[in-house]
């Protein structure tokens, strides 16, 4: 039984959620059956040597689909955004270690910008035990609020410019919440704040990290991240295989 595979997946729906942010649903029953929240896919863009690592936003095992919400960051993701329903996209998935979810624990899901989508898959599994605190640059870029609400999670939104929701940082907004475990995905400064918040509460935290990546499966050792093991020994782990979700205490420099 293959725990991941590379195969063409039919694009079922594609839409632009916000300027430069796209929402794709792909038909790939065999891959969806194995996926867990927090994992990612390596998406092939023809003409490019390296695949694009993109987090899984939604897993629907019943309909056999995976959902990806991604931002155009460069040439590869720009080309990807031009695919239309009916096209086939080659994906290598599901990859990496996801979020360790526990429905008995009040879980704070902290997402910043394009870090919000992978948390949606987690929210769906956690239901009402989750509180999602999501931060965006402005109202226009605030995505997935309804999707998060539909999972049963409590949802709080912050924007940098105050054009929607709380005017300020997600870390400030999250400080008013009670939780027993924290999962965060977003820019580095937000992850630092997330770690500090979890530490101040004395609860475990998990961070989803990014790094420039090549193979996606742990073979090439390209996507290194400085980690610390239980005995304090420092070493380079890899985002694709050891992560992308890491216990915050392992991450040397957030």
């Amino acid at each position, binding site marked *: 039984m*293959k725990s991941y595979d590379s195969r063409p997946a039919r694009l079922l729906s594609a839409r632009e959620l916000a300027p430069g942010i796209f929402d794709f649903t792909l038909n790939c029953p065999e891959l969806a059956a194995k996926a867990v929240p927090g994992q990612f896919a390596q998406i092939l863009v023809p003409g490019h040597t390296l695949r694009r690592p993109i987090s899984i936003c939604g897993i629907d095992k019943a309909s056999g689909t995976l959902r990806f919400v991604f931002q155009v960051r460069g040439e590869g993701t720009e080309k990807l955004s031009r695919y239309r329903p009916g096209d086939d996209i080659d994906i290598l998935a599901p990859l990496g270690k996801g979020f360790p979810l526990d429905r008995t624990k009040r879980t704070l899901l902290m997402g910043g910008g394009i870090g919000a989508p992978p948390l949606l898959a987690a929210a769906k599994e956690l239901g009402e035990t989750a509180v999602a605190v999501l931060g965006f640059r402005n109202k226009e870029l605030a995505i997935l609020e309804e999707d998060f609400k539909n999972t049963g999670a409590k949802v709080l939104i912050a924007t940098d410019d105050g054009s929607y929701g709380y005017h300020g940082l997600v870390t400030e907004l999250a400080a008013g919440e009670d939780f027993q475990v924290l999962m965060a995905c977003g820019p580095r400064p937000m992850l630092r704040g997330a770690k500090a918040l979890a530490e101040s509460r004395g609860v475990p935290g998990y961070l989803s990290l990014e790094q420039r990546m090549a193979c996606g499966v742990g073979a090439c050792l390209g996507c290194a991240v400085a980690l610390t093991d239980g005995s304090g020994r420092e070493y380079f782990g890899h985002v694709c295989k050891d992560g992308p979700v890491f216990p915050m205490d392992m991450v040397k420099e957030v």
Partner: protein
Amino acid sequence: MAALNVNIAGVEFKNPIIAASGTFGFGREYAELYPLSELGGISCKGTTLYERPGNPPPRVAETPGGMLNAVGLQNPGVEHFINEDLPWLEKQGTRIIANVAGSSVEDYCRTAELLNDTAVDMVELNISCPNVKEGGVQFGVTKEGVEGMTRAVRDRCKKPLMVKLSPNVTDITEMAIAAESGGADALSLINTLTGMRIDINSRRPIIRNNTGGLSGPAVLPVAIRMVWQVSQRVKLPVVGLGGISTWQDAVEMLLAGASAIQVGTAIFTDPYAPIKIRDGLLEFMDKNGVKSLSELTGGVRPW
């Protein structure tokens, strides 16, 4: 049906498709996708006498038609390879090539010696890694360095010895001849070409090591040219690599003078690339009445 088997330095490979070092780990990740017995062989991740931490990230960057890497030989050390990876690898039904690197001649020799009484089929001497401060390519860019290293390891290595050449030299044929003089049994070429990318906003090199090794389709013409030049100057079998991503590339490499090929970066684009290349090669041979690989090797008709 055409025969895909090939004998290199006394080692029989069931087909000429070998996974290139550094792109395939020790095989476990891709064994999820297909039996490794589908491949002629695997050149394992570069191994050194002691564990190496590797370079800080970022270690990889995409480039037009390829990529840069500066992983820096991160590996758990040769004893870990022998004790943890080899027992599993030897059950996979494919040829195992140990890629050996180090910081000194003595490091290389001791690493090769430790592999003498193991299931490894062949040692590939990596004197062409451009991404470490000490060792690696410094032994691969002068005739004296190549010959001296090859001879020193040859004296203490019981396995067939393949020397992997760097393209970052003025004349690669001189290095090939030096390796032959030093007692190599085979050559593999090319390793990566040193390159660099810069982020125009931060003015920082994208790779933390500043420079990295260029691989992928962009380097194929350089590799074809070098294999063609080298194969005319030495009697040793040549294993060709550098940017091979399709079966047509593989045929081209064989025609240039290679007896077998390695597939590396193409695996990142398509993990099934080695299998597709093998199948395409077989179909090409059958369609063209080519019965064995030796009919292709060096078969280019230069103007």
